[in-house]
């Protein structure tokens, strides 16, 4: 069963003579529990595609059904609610709130979903433990290394058990060792049944993916199953 079903996705930027056509009629589907890696050179449109699939942006044309819901038709407020309840995100540069501790960062989406403080704390601690940061609940992001921050970001993304986890070049700002650890962690999460869509430009990090989609100039040019 496809959890993501996107058809004829176009995304243009600018107006008039300076329109840039970044996505040119992409069709893509992702099965529940699948781990899809999107690869391509810089400017290929892979991140833009992920923003459309993850309801962070609206395509200029096309439909995107996620878990049966056409996210293109949702209002801004409904999309925010949808992202909260259905999706998880890992950004390239960790994107943690600098004023909040690791635990509080992870708790944020849980509290927003209405979980009470004590349960959110327990769930956050479990998620932090699961990414190998046992005991670092009270550390501020600035007190953690880049790799550790990214693991907190992963903990935040998975703590609320999203239906799909999106990762936008999660290793881009990490050294090779930390990058490998993060990729391994994402692989482990996938093994627990998590649907994952990851954008990367490094082939070596796609080893755990079920399928690799290659993009070039706003189009899918190739697909490969691992």
């Amino acid at each position, binding site marked *: 069963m496809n959890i993501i079903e996107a058809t004829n996705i176009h995304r243009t930027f600018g107006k008039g003579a300076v329109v840039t056509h970044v996505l040119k009629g992409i069709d893509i589907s992702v099965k529940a529990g699948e781990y899809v890696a999107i690869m391509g050179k810089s400017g290929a449109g892979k991140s833009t595609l992920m*923003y459309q699939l993850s309801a*962070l*942006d609206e395509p200029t044309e096309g439909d995107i059904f996620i878990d049966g819901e056409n996210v293109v038709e949702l209002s*801004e*407020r409904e999309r*925010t*609610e949808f*992202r*909260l*309840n259905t*999706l*998880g*995100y890992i*950004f390239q540069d960790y*994107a943690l*709130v*600098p*004023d*909040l501790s690791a635990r*509080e960062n992870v708790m*944020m*989406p849980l*509290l*927003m*979903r*209405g979980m009470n403080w004590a349960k959110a704390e327990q769930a956050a601690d479990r998620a932090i433990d699961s990414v190998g940061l046992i005991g670092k609940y009270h550390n*501020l992001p600035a007190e953690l290394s880049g790799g550790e921050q990214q693991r907190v970001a992963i903990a*935040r*993304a998975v703590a609320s058990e999203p239906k799909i986890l999106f990762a936008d070049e999660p290793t881009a700002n990490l050294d090779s060792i930390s990058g490998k650890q993060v990729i391994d962690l994402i692989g482990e999460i996938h093994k627990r049944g998590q649907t994952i869509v990851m954008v990367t430009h490094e082939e070596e990090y796609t080893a755990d993916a079920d399928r690799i989609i290659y993009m070039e100039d706003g189009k899918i040019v190739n697909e490969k199953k691992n």
Partner: protein
Amino acid sequence: MRSLRIGLLLGLRQIQRASIWTTALIIFVMMLTFLNLVVVSGVLVGLITGAERAVRNESLGDIILSEPTGEKTIIETNSIVSSFASYPEIDSYSIRYKSNAVLEANYKERRNLNTERDIATVNVTGIDPALEDNMSHISDDVVRGEYLDPNEEGYILIGYYYLEESADKFGDVFDTLGIKNPGETVRLTVGDISKEFVVKGIIESKVDDVSLNTYIPEREFRRLFGRIDQNADQRVIRVKSGYSEDDLKKAFVTNGLNAYAKIQTFEEGKPKFITDIKATMNLLGTFIGSIGLVVASITIFIIIFINALSRRRHIGILKGIGIERQAIEIAYVIQAAFYALAGSALGALLIYGFLIGYFERNPIAFPFSDGVLVAPANETLLRFIVLFITTLVAGFIPAWMIVRQNTLNAILGRK
């Protein structure tokens, strides 16, 4: 509710992690704004309150008895005085006889009768020196010479405004006399009757009614002005601490004293211009304070705007992971509320813990008043509410401007 919880967490943590010096500076600015709002009008009103207090202490007392409608004097003055013993609320009182007369100085030295006489039409008040001093402490206002002795006659106290030297200070507003020092002889003339007095003292106060007056013992007043019935023009009463002047007035009325005299509390009997000027000063102070309010709201706007702008990407990410806009806006409103609360609390502490007491001990010396700081709790609360609401709005608008921006643009740092 969920947004409020998240907003509280974000807001409190931002305050907690912010630079202590920046936070202290913002709170200091808010404290100055609060002081500006409360103290400026407080001092302006305090100038008039100082004058009001002086009139109450040195002239009118807490309750004023004057002639009832249709009469020239208080009726049955002696009976009323006798009844005072039955009112434990009365601390002290004075009986005053008032009229006008012509006062002449330097008439003994006047050799050429073609030259102008040194005369002035003056207010004359007949008093029992002991009772008056007990009530108004008027002897403290004697700046040269001595106060009247209850056992002496033929002495007069002259208000400073009747001296030529006062005209040098304040301008030629009143008729003045060339009296230099106590001990000089003056002549008081009422109709065809004249009497010589020795100037016992010069009296000066910030209450015009005192400085623009002459005082002689009541016995001499009654003889000079032919007031054989002993009915006075004014009775002023000081109420003991802990008792209410309103209650005493009610008791007077209940016992029928209002048939013999018009009875007013100080608030009722004080000159209306005092109330009017106080209201004007309050308005003026509020206007000046509101300029500070505008400055403070702009300050808060800029602080929150820069803060939100510098965290634009984080705001985008929070929205990206599903945090509602309201939660993020609440976080910034909470920061603004914290600054307003902390600044106002410090300002209130300074006003009620130090400034009011300081100005009571060291009033600001103005020509017409010893100015104090007046900050009634209800008006201070009102000004705090105005400052608080203004700050919340000034905090909300920039947060709203930043938070409403496109989520992805904010995440990617795009315009």
